[in-house]
């Protein structure tokens, strides 16, 4: 067997690696916002402070993984970027609003007045947008794997014209675009721009993303505090969200069978990775029960990574099911190779820097860091 990878496969892989980092780190930052929203009881304030300290120094760096995914997509697979941007205009715009509100509100809370009402206002916006954004991310992932968006050959045979099975489509400058209509009524606008993502399957994937991010955050947060009671709070939350995300994952699996049949078959074929995810899940749960929080963090990260990789392997070689693949969307070889070279050089510079950032804020003795960070922020 030949295991050599083509440039487009390497770049597809790079996108998945970046997406994995985004899920593990950026995703957990969103999850932190979810727990901010759900903070209750006598220690709600301490819970919120732990969350803010945990994500403060790192969320901006974590956010850049998403930009990396987008940049690789539009440079190396421009046709897929174009088609996705057209059909998913509405959920992508909503995602952007969520991203803006989350980042701004978090920063405003840090630097605005420390009066309770002001803090509550920004905290609420931060928490709500942290909850909505992952759902939209999941919806977008769900649509591109659902096979509901048909992209026909364009006028010159390269650019994407996208059409619906029922012949409904909207003319663009270069081609036409549309989505599979399930015999649904509605205006052409609704059929093309709304209906593909207002479906049970993508929405279920949205909630799966939300629950996984919340789960990751809770597991990480057990490592981010020395306060035993707060740690117990997050431990309980981690265990609850473990089962919630498990249940939603089951629901997505069942829905995929009818709603995304082709994707479902490929998903099933990627079963070795699902077994890995299951083993990690069990490991993480056991560690949570036994209070091995560092190990739980590692297992939880592996679990979420493997869920993502299982999806990616099932999706391969598609970027947008059923028509766009990493092959028929690939840019010219020179561009692909230059981007690979940039990624290699970038990784050599980036990973040590990233590790250094994490070592300062995440891997050192907690109490010292906490005080020093608080001191850095003092007026």
């Amino acid at each position, binding site marked *: 067997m030949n295991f050599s990878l083509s440039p487009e496969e390497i770049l597809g892989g790079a996108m998945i690696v970046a997406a994995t980092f985004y899920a593990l780190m950026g995703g957990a930052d969103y999850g932190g916002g979810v727990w901010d929203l759900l903070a209750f009881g006598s220690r709600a304030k301490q819970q919120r402070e732990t969350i803010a300290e945990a994500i403060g120094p790192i969320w901006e760096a974590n956010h850049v993984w998403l*930009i990396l995914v987008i940049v690789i997509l*539009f440079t190396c697979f421009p046709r897929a970027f174009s088609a996705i941007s057209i059909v998913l205009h509405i959920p992508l715009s909503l995602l952007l609003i969520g991203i803006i509100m989350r980042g701004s509100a978090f920063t405003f809370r840090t630097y605005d007045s420390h009066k309770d009402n002001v803090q509550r206002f920004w905290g609420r916006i931060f928490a709500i947008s942290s909850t909505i954004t992952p759902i939209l991310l999941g919806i977008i992932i769900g649509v591109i794997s659902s096979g509901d968006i048909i992209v026909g050959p364009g006028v010159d045979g390269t650019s994407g014209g996208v059409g619906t099975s029922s012949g409904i489509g909207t003319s*663009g*400058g270069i081609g036409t675009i549309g989505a599979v209509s399930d015999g649904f009524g509605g205006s052409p606008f609704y059929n093309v721009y709304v209906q593909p993502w207002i479906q049970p399957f993508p929405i279920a994937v949205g909630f799966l993303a939300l629950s996984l991010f919340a789960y990751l955050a809770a597991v990480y947060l057990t490592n981010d505090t020395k306060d035993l009671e707060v740690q117990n709070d997050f431990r309980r939350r981690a265990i609850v969200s473990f089962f919630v995300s498990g249940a939603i994952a089951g629901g997505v699996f069942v829905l995929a069978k009818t709603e995304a049949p082709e994707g479902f078959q490929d998903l099933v074929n990627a079963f070795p990775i699902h077994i890995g995810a299951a083993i990690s899940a069990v490991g993480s749960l056991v560690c949570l029960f036994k209070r091995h929080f560092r190990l739980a963090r590692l297992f939880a990260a592996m679990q979420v990574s493997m869920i993502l990789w299982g999806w990616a392997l099932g999706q391969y070689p598609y970027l947008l099911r059923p028509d766009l693949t990493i092959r028929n969307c690939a840019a*010219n070889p020179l561009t692909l190779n230059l*981007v690979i070279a940039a990624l290699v050089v970038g990784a050599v510079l980036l990973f040590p820097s990233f590790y250094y950032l994490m070592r300062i804020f995440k891997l050192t003795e907690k109490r010292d860091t906490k005080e020093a960070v608080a001191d850095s922020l003092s007026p």
Partner: protein
Amino acid sequence: MDDLFMARCQMGMSLAFHIVFAAIGIGLPLMMCIAEWLWLRTGDDVYHELAKRWSKIAAILFAVGAVSGTVLSFELGLLWPHFMEWSGEIIGLPFALEGFAFFTEAIFLGIYLYGWNLVPRAVHLASGVLVAISGLLSGLFVVLANGWMNTPTGFKIQMPSGFKVHMPVGVGLPGGAASNPIIVDPITLVANPDFNNPLGKPVAIDPVAAMFNPAGIPEAVHMLIACYAATAFMFAGIHAYCLLKDKRNVFHRRAMALSLVVGAVMAIVQPLTGDVLAKMVAERQPVKLAAFESLFDTKEGAPLLIGGVPDVANEKVNFAIEVPHALSFLAYSDFNAKVKGLKEFPKELWPNIPIVHYCFQIMVASGMIMSLVSLWAGVHYVRRRNMLDSKAFLWALTACAPLGFIAIETGWMVTEVGRQPWVIQGVMRTKDAVTPMPGLAVPFFTFTGLYLFLAVIVVWLVYRQVAKSPVVHESLGEPVPPSEPVSEDRSEGEPILPSEPVPEKPSEGES
């Protein structure tokens, strides 16, 4: 409403919003690092305080800049999918590099902001320097990509079968109809703007040549210097205003002096980089150059207009002051050079002349005022006069605070509106790039409302940071931060010092 117009409004609004944060994100880290370096070198704690306070402002602005920049990277596809589909593989490389620069910036900004007491001082300063350098590189890469839209290079265009070339002989193409496939060099399209074929396919793509397109470097240098000048002048102005209220406050003195030095150097260099850029525009985008100056008729020894109201219907400019032969000289280094007027080109290829003309005039005027104020500061310095004694100078500096940003905003209007109707000069029209999605007024108004809200909050938060400035009077070396925690009702700048009389020193102009 017209969707194309709405898409352009949304893109323009998003850029106009983001660019303020991007510019400060490039300029402020430099000033922060200089302050920290001065602290380490002199041991003067006022500089430490200054670096810390500037870094907090940087934190607020960087966060909003990061999210608004993310919006732009998505909007390229949401609003202009056909542009991205066509040119992503040609011009994506600088965006990929920018991604890495942004990454470095975010990582080391995290260390800089939160790590004052966690890393050694030298490492802390080095993190700041990395933030400054990566900010500079981010700006460079993004502007290189914009340069490509003005002077597209690094690819050729393969025309669809049946396409007839109707171009004059001698521009690198066979005249008249030619056999297929026809491969066209985009340079010939730029030279012959009466041409449009979005259905051609890009071939022979060389992303490196595209990145180092002719407009890229001059545009980037002009923009980066503008970022430093605008940021430094804004802070110089803010602290000059504070000094008008409390002349003896060493914190504001140091802050103003440092900002003024950075701003003055940049503002004095800027006209030169603008000149280089204008010469490039004259050569590559003659329509745009003519629009800058509302030059309707081709002229030898064309005058430079100052001010003026373009009357497009009658193809003339009213009320302008003319500097004879100056435009020919500035564009071609020859007082009698021939400058092509707008009438040489079909009207449908004209940008919106009044907008380009007014914006260009405002940009140049803002830049010139900043240069003159810088020279004024230089005169003070050479004559060893204390700038603080000149109320007129402090007021002038205060008035200059927004000028750099006015120049940046209008400058971008000039370059973007001046390129219309093209999204890629001579190759693809903006109307052929826009998304087919209808109802674009909705996202435009949504994002505009959101950004207005954020702008108000950011201004308020920066005001809060400045208002919390410590009151440090000369005789009492130690900086005195406001009482902790800063109570919300304490009035701004209220001295927290013992009421003993503070002797005024006569001269400390260069501090």
